[in-house]
């Protein structure tokens, strides 16, 4: 696992080694001591779960950092007071600043998408889209849902309607 710092605010986590390879290393070390170790799961599932939890938490932290960076970049004026389930209609789209409108319109077209998928359409960096999407979540226009490592964003037309 490698922790790298892109800037003062952003912390990115990379898992360079697959878990199975890490397991092999431990198995070899332990086998020299002559103890019986399960080759598949040397320490059981717990360390793996802990690592995954750390990774998820760091990713959440990363998302929040990205929002903070964007807020500093554009100032809080874009954000306004957080709203609950604000309708993402065309008039709202018109009143948005340009950078957020582009993201909001793309998510309207896609329905449900990750920051990565949105960034392909807008040709902006994934981290930038992630920040804008999180900003729209805070503003109450979008909902965010995590499935494993991926965060999905969508306009929840059912609860907003």
């Amino acid at each position: 696992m490698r922790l790298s710092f892109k800037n003062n605010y952003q912390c990115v986590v990379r898992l360079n080694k697959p878990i199975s390879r890490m397991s092999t290393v431990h198995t070899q070390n332990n086998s020299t001591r002559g103890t019986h170790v399960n080759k598949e799961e040397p320490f059981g599932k717990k360390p793996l779960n802990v690592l995954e939890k750390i990774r998820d938490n760091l990713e959440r932290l990363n998302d929040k950092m990205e929002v903070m960076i964007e807020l500093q970049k554009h100032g809080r004026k874009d954000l306004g007071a957080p709203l609950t389930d604000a309708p993402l209609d065309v008039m709202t789209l018109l009143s948005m600043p340009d950078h957020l409108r582009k993201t909001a319109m793309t998510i309207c077209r896609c329905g449900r998408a990750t920051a990565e998928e949105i960034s392909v359409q807008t040709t902006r960096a994934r981290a930038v889209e992630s920040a804008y999407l999180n900003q729209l979540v805070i503003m109450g226009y979008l909902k965010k849902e995590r499935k494993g490592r991926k965060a999905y964003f969508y306009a929840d037309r059912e609860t907003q309607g």
Partner: protein
Amino acid sequence: MEMGKIIAVHSYKGGTGKTLLSVNLATTFARQGKKVCLFDLDFRAPSLFAILNMPKADCWLNDYLNGTVDIGKVLIDMSSKVPGNGKFFVGFANPATEAIRDMSAKDRKWEMHALGRLLSLRNSLLNEKGFDYIVFDTSPGLQYSSINAIVTADFVAVATTGDRSDVDGTRRMLRELYNLFEKKTGLVINKVLDATALSKRQEMDKKVREVYQVPMLGLVPCFCDILRAEGGLIFVRDKPDHPFTKILDEMAKKIEKNEIC
């Protein structure tokens, strides 16, 4: 394989020829063998019902946007009315006074749902049912339903005339609405006097780029035949050799080949 396109026909003022353009553009695509769907999104003044001589419909676009029926129930197959192998489906707006009043009183949340329903047509009609074109005939001005149609569309044909208030309003609308949505737009100048002269066409083309700062999709002369028909003819079907039909063919070609940019 290239995916189908959604085209919205819009204008700042009424009476600029949006419906004439929508019906004839959709029919032109159908004549060329395409699978086309024409929607009447002018809920305040529905007109396709009368123009296409439809005796009755069981379900309306109003019902689809209200979320009470699927789009399949709204579409009426009118392919037999168009020559050639193309497919021509129409979704009508309910012309009843009560329905018009109901649509005029919708709130923002309903409009947000309506936008979602319009956006989902891309998947249900273009992706799943293999339509080549969806043409939206919209209300004039900045109505909610029209802006929803513009947001949904891939390309917007804006109809305008030489009327001073129309020119001014269209210019503002293009700058303050279309630019914000980064829409691919083409301008159709309708009811132009002396439009057959090459010098006039060149002058208009230059004027369009200067005044509106968008490319010109077409220049339609003021045809007495169109006025005389009183909305009873689909020109590209009934008058295949008429100059208007040729102009529509050129417009369809420009849209198909993405020559407007």
